């Protein structure tokens, strides 16, 4: 084997090793770049999902704002919101010739659900028709409410007396 042949063989081996090394390096680079790309794509997908959800929820919030505002009117915002209703009921009873007395006003909290309510107890008297209509009016208060206690009895003469307890929900704080 001549000296030139040995040199050529050595150069060939070196070139082959360098080529293989370069090839594996490029493969490794491509693989790493692929993993980075996958990570970026997952991040991009998560971001797109969040953006889509955000836009969807934003549109939903905007579209449902009037309805939610209407629903919010059916609840007391806080304990002090019961005062205007009490004034309205007393003023209306006075105008209608009904004797009204607010005998109870309290705030209660449900222990399990933490829902808050305002309880108002009224004692009112008048004619039979007045007491009946006033009781029905208490039953149909434009709030998220119900009558939890009701008693009606006939007093002296044609006067009737009624006692009712109304429970109105306080708007839950979000």
């Amino acid at each position, binding site marked *: 084997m001549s000296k030139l042949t040995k040199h050529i*063989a050595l150069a060939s081996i070196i070139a082959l090793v360098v080529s293989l090394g370069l090839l594996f390096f490029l493969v490794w680079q491509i693989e790493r770049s692929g993993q980075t790309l996958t990570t970026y794509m997952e991040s991009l997908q998560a971001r797109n999902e969040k953006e889509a959800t955000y836009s*969807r929820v934003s549109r939903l919030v905007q579209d449902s704002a009037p309805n939610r505002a209407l*629903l919010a009117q059916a609840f007391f915002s806080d304990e002090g919101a019961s005062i205007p209703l009490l004034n309205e009921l007393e003023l*209306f009873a006075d105008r209608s010739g009904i004797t009204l007395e607010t005998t109870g006003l309290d705030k209660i909290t449900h222990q399990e659900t933490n829902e808050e309510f305002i309880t108002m107890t009224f004692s009112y008297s008048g004619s039979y028709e007045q007491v009946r209509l006033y009781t029905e009016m208490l039953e149909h208060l434009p709030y998220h409410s119900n009558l939890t206690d009701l008693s009606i009895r006939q007093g002296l003469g044609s006067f009737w007396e009624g006692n009712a307890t109304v429970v109105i929900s306080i708007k839950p704080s979000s």
Partner: protein
Amino acid sequence: MINKPNINRLVRDILRRSAGPREHNLMHPERDWGIGFGVALLFIVGGVYWAWQTHTLHRSEATKEEAFVPSTNAVYQEAEVEKALDLWAERKARYEAIKIELSAPTPLPPPAEAIITPPSTNNEDSNPDTPTPPTPVEPDTTSPNPSQNENPPPPQLEF
């Protein structure tokens, strides 16, 4: 037709080939470089093909991503809200109607239905939640069943 000289020539050719290659120099630089370049070319072509496949795969995923539909759906029970609003509107309308009805002057009851005897105190204490029906002044003697007039049905309270 094969004759003897031809057979001898064939035998000589076969024997000459079986003696091995005439050239004993095992190194062929051109051949070896050719093989090396061929192998490298195969690697390059294979790498290009693999890279193209990978690129095509990720480009397809990117294309699919454009048509992404979010899986997270915000829950808004619109039907329930509409039903609640309808109930609330109905209740508010009823409330206003009762207010108007209550503001109207109530006619006095006819004298025949006037109550002459207030309910006894004992009766109220025994059952204060039950309203006592009014007692008519004069029982209707023309009624075929006088016992019904003595105990008229209680008023229908539509609460």
